[in-house]
């Protein structure tokens, strides 16, 4: 057993941490949050130049990483700094699907993504699918040489900024069937696509994507017709690893801020951290931090494993991070008091990131049930 990062990953972590410490403070982020696009193209380009996006793709795909631990290293740092730019959606999710499934023409897009010159979004979830990956109603019907898409995609993160959308649609079967799902790589400005955007509570933007008689050539299909479910599940697993690592990084920041505050804030003539009631709660948070770190290692380390091993670990980790994250976010706010409720204090955004991470790729309850089902299978 060896729990050290490889030299390359250690370097990536150090570079990224230093860059974000210098460039991404609370005021900078609050300016980005208040902007119309909800992201900074400057930060995006600079991070791409640092190799952040390349680290999320394998060598065969044109990158230099792409494994579970590469994803975990990058997103822990992005989470630690509370970065709101959509690396997860462009690179891990939609970009990953293009790299996994695309033919030579489609996969050419990956180079552009790695260079930072292209934004993507994965239009998959629907208003009644909640966290189920196979509950897709959006239809794909052949029309001569073309395929026509109709449906409603819910809370598609980064849809407004995306140059291309990866859209899931059903070619056969019923909502709830794994079989019959296909993916399509479609320019976002294709006729019939309407994007209604809005801000998200924890930063970034999303949109409702309405597909009304969207006619695309059959060559837009990613991979084989009706067989996309396995790829969607595997990519969602990678995205869940990224999300959990991001949450872990944010939790590191929350506990560091809380520890510092407990040692400096004085009430009743002494630092409040000297009150045992608070000291013990802080200790509990630090215990949960170790649990959280190990959980992320479990998920990242099994991302390249067989399907069952991978998914059992993803669900176990997502469940634990949901619980530990909520505890850390709520107790960090509580131990700070009112100051943590203010938007200009770093913890406010960090706490939102931690809790809202539970609303992507399945929440605590969803993954508890999924863990039971997978473990019994």
């Amino acid at each position, binding site marked *: 057993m060896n729990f050290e990062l490889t030299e390359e990953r250690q370097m990536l972590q150090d570079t990224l941490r230093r860059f974000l410490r210098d460039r991404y403070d609370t005021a900078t982020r609050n300016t980005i*949050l208040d902007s119309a696009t909800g992201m900074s193209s400057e930060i995006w380009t600079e991070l791409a130049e640092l190799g952040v996006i390349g680290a999320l793709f394998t060598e065969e795909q044109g990158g230099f990483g792409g494994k579970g631990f590469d994803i975990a290293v990058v997103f822990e740092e992005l989470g630690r700094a509370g970065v709101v730019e959509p690396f997860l959606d462009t690179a891990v999710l939609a970009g990953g699907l293009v790299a996994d499934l695309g033919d030579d023409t489609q996969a050419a897009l990956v180079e552009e993504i790695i260079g930072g010159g292209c934004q993507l979004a994965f239009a998959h979830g629907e208003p009644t699918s909640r966290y189920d990956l196979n509950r897709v109603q959006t239809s794909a019907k052949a029309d001569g040489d073309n395929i026509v898409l109709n449906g409603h995609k819910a*809370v598609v993160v980064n849809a407004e900024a995306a140059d291309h959308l990866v859209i899931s649609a059903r070619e056969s079967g019923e909502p709830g069937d794994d079989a019959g799902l296909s993916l399509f790589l479609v320019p976002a400005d294709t006729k019939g696509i309407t994007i209604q955007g809005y*801000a998200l509570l924890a930063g970034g933007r999303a949109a409702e994507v309405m597909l009304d008689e969207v006619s695309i050539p059959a060559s837009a299909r990613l991979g084989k017709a009706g067989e996309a479910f396995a790829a969607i599940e595997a990519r969602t697993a990678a995205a869940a690893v990224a999300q959990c690592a991001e949450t872990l990084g944010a939790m590191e920041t929350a506990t560091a801020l809380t520890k510092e505050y407990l040692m400096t804030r004085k009430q*009743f003539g002494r630092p409040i951290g000297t009150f045992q009631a608070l000291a013990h709660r802080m200790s509990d948070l630090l215990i949960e931090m170790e649990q959280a770190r190990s959980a992320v290692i479990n998920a990242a380390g099994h991302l390249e494993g067989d399907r069952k091993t991978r998914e059992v670990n993803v669900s176990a980790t997502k469940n634990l991070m949901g619980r530990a994250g909520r505890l850390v976010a709520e107790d960090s706010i509580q131990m700070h008091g009112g100051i943590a409720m203010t938007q200009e204090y770093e913890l406010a955004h960090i706490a939102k990131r931690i*809790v809202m991470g539970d*609303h992507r790729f399945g929440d605590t309850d969803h993954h508890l049930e999924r863990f039971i089902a997978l473990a019994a299978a």
Partner: protein
Amino acid sequence: MDLSYSDEEKAFREEVRSFLAEKLPKELRDKVAGSDGDGLTKADMERWHAILNEQGWLVPNWPKKFGGAEWNAVQKHIFEEEAAAADAPRIVPFGFSMLAPVLHKFGSQEQNDYWLPRMLNGDDWWCQGYSEPGAGSDLASLKTTAVKNEAGTHYIVNGQKTWTTLGQHANMIFCLVRTDKDVKQQEGISFLLIDMNTPGIEVRPIILLDGAPEVNEVWFTDVEVPVENLVGEENKGWTYAKYLLTHERTNIAGVGFSQAGLNTVKRLAKSEMAGGKPLIQNPHFAARVAQVEIDLRAMATTNMRIIAKAAGGGTPGIEASMLKVKGTIIRQEINDLARRTAGVYAMPFASEAIEGSNAGLPDPLGAGPVAAKYFNNRKLSIFGGSNEIQRGIIAKVSMGG
């Protein structure tokens, strides 16, 4: 032991219910439903106050001689429960149920004659100047000073207050200020009424993590306050403040809010689909909801026991602290359930900073901003004496204080 309400109390509940059905404007109800009243404007709140005042129910806690209804604790509870269930706006408490009881007990005849009618008519909007950046849980360490001028006509006030709720709407603030630095902290504090339009006062909004501009910082630089605006005696302010805090703790359990919140969660979970079925049919989720409901039923009875004791003239002691702790835990758990219920649709956020970009915020369940509410209500266990302070009181009193 009898768990039922008396016929009189039942009749009173009917009266409250029909009043709310008839007089609560739909626009106000719609703003309160789902978002807990965050969208209410100053005019909305004043409108509701005026409607209640016309009915004689704006200040049910006041003695009759000051124009109040003198309801007992059970009546107040019934009103609060019905008002929460009907999505009525909350009565803004700072003047009516915080300052007024202090004036009734410690204010001069002139002060009562002048300020109380203005309060009822909506001429003044009061806010509370207690907390300071360095004085939160340790309120008695406050540093804002008030020094009498040579002529003895005015106090000169300098310092900073914070967490001033709805201070942006206020024209008056009641403040705790330090008038003697050389004695024990609690013995050098006075209670002053300050006109917010006096030169030297600056109000700066604090934007909270859910984007809501509901609290403020208030800065005082050489602010002249007439000595007539001192309540009671100089350096006795801590006594008055403690008296006020016991009034701040009425309806502290928030049973009505929790019941309304739980009903909302159930309604949302009937519409939200999970695994192809309504979420409410998911046994794991249903168990979570049931667990909170079981706790709430017991707490509602605890609340009634304490109310019955108060209605019989008894003084609640540490039970108020217990209700604060348990009540906020339950309310926050319900907020957590509401955000969970909404699933991915908990993520959208109506940002006020980005103008015009939030048209058509998707909300298929009609859930309102559940995640923003979850974060906003983290305040419940922080303000009005944090839950840690309450636990300290419970321990001190029950273990030999």
